């Protein structure tokens, strides 16, 4: 084997680059290529619409638009709330599900069901359940809590985007929860037992032993959940208000206008969206390195 390897060093040296080429080509051409093409359009270079002069005008247009800041705030608010609430519920659920009790395996199985289900299905179910004449409202009526559909809280198409957040959380809680469960399983009970032997109370074990153990892994899922919620298009379009909406919806609306000349503005909003997620990605790498070194 060694002799053969020495005889064909070039082939061996090219082996790994060749293995990586197809996947890298897909990402570099389609993804980075798409981002660069989008960046050019947002900077005013868009020959298809007769625009060839580089300018920051479209960014100024986009940011000066009163809708932009409101949309940015709405997008942040939804993504932040979903990430925070999902983590709290996920950690709680994982701490319960890691114990063995009758039905715990079935409960863990049910907990994972939302994972492969498309977000649009979650939205569809949220509409059927939480509409003012939906199933929960009817159950409320049967229990004498609700007299008419108008009595049921309006949480779809609302200012607080509760319907949007519920749809996201239905999928994100199991996602974060499974990461926490996996960490808890790999850590094992020895640290907790040690803390218990040293006289730590239940609360102390939770705050000083368990949470520090699961936090590094949870932080990396935060970034994924936040970035995903931040960039999702269909849920806020379907269950949110038409104004204020979120940045992806606003970018796509501008982009899809019949006149091609409004595309650079839509593209500028999209690039802002991408830049925010790139900053998140950098923060993620920093945090990952930090948690590895501690």
């Amino acid at each position: 084997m060694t002799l053969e390897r020495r005889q064909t060093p070039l082939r061996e040296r090219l082996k790994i680059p060749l293995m990586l080429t197809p996947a890298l080509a897909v990402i570099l051409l389609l993804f980075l290529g798409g981002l660069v093409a989008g960046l050019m359009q947002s900077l005013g270079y868009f020959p298809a619409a007769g625009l060839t002069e580089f300018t920051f005008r479209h960014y100024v247009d986009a940011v000066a638009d009163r809708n932009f800041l409101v949309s940015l705030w709405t997008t942040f608010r939804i993504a932040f709330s979903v990430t925070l609430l999902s983590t709290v519920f996920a950690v709680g659920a994982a701490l319960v599900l890691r114990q063995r009790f009758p039905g715990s395996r079935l409960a863990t199985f049910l907990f994972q069901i939302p994972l492969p289900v498309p977000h649009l299905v979650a939205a569809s179910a949220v509409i059927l359940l939480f509409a003012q004449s939906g199933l929960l409202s009817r159950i409320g009526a049967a229990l004498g809590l609700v007299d008419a559909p108008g009595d049921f809280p309006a949480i779809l198409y609302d200012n607080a985007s509760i319907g949007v957040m519920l749809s996201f959380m239905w999928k994100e809680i199991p996602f974060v929860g499974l990461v926490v469960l996996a960490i808890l399983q790999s850590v094992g009970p020895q640290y907790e037992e040690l803390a218990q032997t040293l006289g730590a109370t239940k609360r102390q074990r939770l705050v000083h032993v368990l949470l520090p153990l699961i936090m590094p892994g949870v932080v990396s899922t935060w970034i994924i959940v936040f970035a995903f919620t931040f960039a999702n298009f269909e849920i806020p379009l379907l269950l949110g208000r038409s104004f204020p909406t979120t940045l992806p919806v606003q970018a796509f609306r501008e982009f899809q206008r019949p006149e091609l000349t409004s595309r650079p503005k839509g593209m500028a909003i999209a690039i802002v969206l991408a830049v925010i997620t790139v900053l998140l990605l950098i923060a993620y790498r920093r945090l990952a390195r930090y948690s590895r070194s501690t």
Partner: protein
Amino acid sequence: MTSTSTPGPAPGPDQAVSERRLAGRRQINWLRWATVTVIVVSVVLPGVSLLLRSFAFRWHYPDVLPGEWGLDAWAYTIDDTSRVFESLGNSLRIALLTTTLALLVGMPAARALGQHQFRGKRMVEWILMMPIIVPSLVAAMGIHIVFIRLGLTATVLGVSLVHLIPATPYFVLVMSSVFANYSPALEETARTLGASKIRVFRYVTLPAISSGLLVACLFTFLISWSQYVTTVLIGSGILITLPMVLFPFLGQGNAAVAASITLIFVAPAVMVLILTSRSLGRGSTVMGGFGKV
């Protein structure tokens, strides 16, 4: 560990300790049942409400169950005018092509990342994983004009290529962890014994990685299957997929039809759950990767 512990209830001041411990346990049980109840309700109720809605003919407020049952919504759903069958075919074609392409481009990269150490590895991982965080929608918007020029808009290939942006990173991620846990020593042995490369792959490599490969493929299929806005964009509204037919019904349309199309749309996910349920029951977290569908 050498001293013998005294079993049974201890007398005196220890009584208070054990009582407190018992109270603590009761509190855990309360939490446990609350958690399990919330999980069961939040999974069962959506499924039940979708089924009820799709088979309801008349369902007046405030009835908890439909007053009259009927197959009207399903009859409309399978009728050609709803375009459900047409879009179902497109969704399947696009998802299968995306999975095949991800398999072809992703397998070698996954193997390189899972089994080899090389210079620039972290850089490669960085590039390949970027679409997990940075939205594919932005790239799809940018590339749209190029696809128009290449004649790729409104084609199955064009839409699949754009679906490949979010699909490839996840395929590589799942398969590289499969390859990281797989030892190539058996392959060397088989090669030494004179097996051809194809036979080695067929009889040594494939059986060892097959379950991980299945998960990666199902996962890729579901990512493509769930895509909405990138398909609207690159499909130019001409190439219709299932979520595009479902979407208008979820807004202002017929709720019963929306429910029946939703049930068709969720079918592959249910099949994935059944296929992977055996590993799920063992407390495995193989499903973690599906989170971003």
